[in-house]
């Protein structure tokens, strides 16, 4: 019971509509965890509660043995959780390098040190040739990579990825998967991803949680999940006898 992140019985309602109800899961240090589920299942709501966008109505979120529910987003980030946004939010007027430097300045005191770290990260994400261009000139796949690069520059222990594969071509998706694998292996960064692209989920995640109507209906390895009748039911509809 000593996961890096423990989500314990959290619930959240919006004007009476239960978005998440009594959800619990745990992410051990060093793992890659995926949260899947149909649209409106409450995935992003859970993400936002972990990231501090809003507090849960009930339940606890424990990160590094410290309760973090109710902290502000910047405090959560400072505690060691980096996040990306489903709809990318680049600093459009700043250059690609400056975008990443903003993230790097959280742990680096000088701009020079932040620049150095940022250049290394840009190299990893194949954005180094575009470092001087304004972020607004990037294509969508590039913006997605920039989003991850920026979050990584804050040197998180846990990285939350909100549908970073959406809209990518299969080869681009595979390249991203490779980057995350390498990151997880070399730096030991724990990753929690929300994803619709099953190709990426199956290739990356060692553990999958399935959300449906705000509840965690199944948990297990990718192989177990694809055979779970409850999962098949929520994705494909109830099995009917003919």
């Amino acid at each position: 019971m000593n996961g890096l992140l423990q989500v314990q019985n959290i619930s959240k309602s919006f004007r009476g509509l239960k978005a998440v109800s009594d959800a619990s899961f745990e992410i051990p240090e060093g793992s890659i965890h995926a949260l899947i589920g149909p649209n409106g299942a409450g995935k992003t709501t859970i993400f936002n509660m972990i990231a501090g966008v809003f507090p849960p109505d009930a339940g606890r979120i424990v990160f590094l043995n410290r309760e973090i529910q109710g902290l502000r987003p910047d405090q959560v980030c400072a505690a060691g959780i980096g996040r990306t946004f489903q709809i990318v939010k680049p600093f459009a007027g700043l250059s690609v390098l400056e975008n990443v430097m903003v993230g790097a300045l959280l742990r680096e005191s000088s701009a020079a040190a932040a620049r150095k770290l940022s250049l290394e990260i840009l190299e990893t994400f194949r954005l180094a040739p575009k470092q001087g261009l304004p972020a607004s000139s990037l294509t969508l796949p590039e913006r997605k990579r920039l989003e991850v690069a920026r979050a990584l520059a804050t040197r998180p222990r846990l990285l939350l990825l909100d549908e970073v594969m959406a809209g990518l071509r299969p080869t681009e998706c595979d390249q991203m998967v490779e980057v995350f694998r390498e990151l997880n292996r070399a730096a030991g960064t724990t990753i929690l991803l929300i994803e619709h692209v099953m190709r990426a989920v199956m290739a990356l995640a060692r553990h999958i949680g399935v959300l449906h109507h705000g509840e965690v209906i199944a948990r297990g390895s990718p192989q177990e999940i694809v055979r779970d009748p409850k999962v098949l039911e929520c994705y494909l509809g109830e099995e009917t006898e003919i």
Partner: protein
Amino acid sequence: MKKEIIYLGILAAFLAAFPWFAGPYALSIATLILYLAYTGQAWNVMMGFAGQLSLGHSLYVGVGAYVAGGLFFHFGLGPWAGLWAAMAACVAFGLAIGFLAFRFGISGVYFALLTIAFAEFTRIGFDHLQWTNGPGGMFLRVAQRDHWDLLNFRGPPFMYYYAMLFLATAAFLACAFLLRTKAGFYWQAIRENEEAAQALGINTFRWKMLAVAISAAMTSVSGVFFAFYYNNLFPHEIFSMGRSIELILGPVIGGVGTLFGPILGAAALTLLSDGITEALAWLGVEIPGIKQVFYGLVLLAVVTFLPNGIWPFIKKQMKL
């Protein structure tokens, strides 16, 4: 990079030598340009860098002017001491506005409205303040024009010119420096996307407060200069909405968020305004309000054709 330094050197030499060949009228215009450039730079820290629109910056000019002016008027305290009191008062005002707005999530146009409201009710407050003679205005002792009294910031016109040149240069360098620091990066991140900035660990409340404090402190110095340059202060004049707009037109026309924008904008607008007056006098045209119409048309043209301001356009043309 080298080209820029050469251009800057030429500009600096020209400005330093200006009083030797300029007449009194040209010198007063140049002083006004530098004053607007400096104040525009101060406003730019808040809006251009941190993205917080203030439409009530006359508040800081007014409070700065009245605090330093009042201390001089009543206690004979010179501007060099009064400056710090003025600065402290303006920072206090700025932080109060910032706290109210940022703590309760007021942003964008609503924040701008709040800044107007503060400037307005401060104006009304000063209208009823006996200590500063209310709406009747406060008049500082005027010394002889050629009489030097540096301790009380009294001297010939070129002294005011050099004081303003020093301030404008210092503000330019300070802003250039700030943009390279953590604060500069964080402000721009907040300006571009506050939510994303916060997700990257930036305590947006604290950094926005810092931007307001620095901007208010810088603007208070404009106020002190104003008091000792013009020697008369009226609440309805110094706190007016028109003043606030006049202060921000420079950086808006020149280029919001750029270092040269406020300087270029201040020069362009002041020269344009006086140029139109001169041209109309030369043509012998005397139609009331015609100057404002021309002025408005030119501003309209700039905003339409150069929506990012003059400086980004020039920068591109000169390939700097």
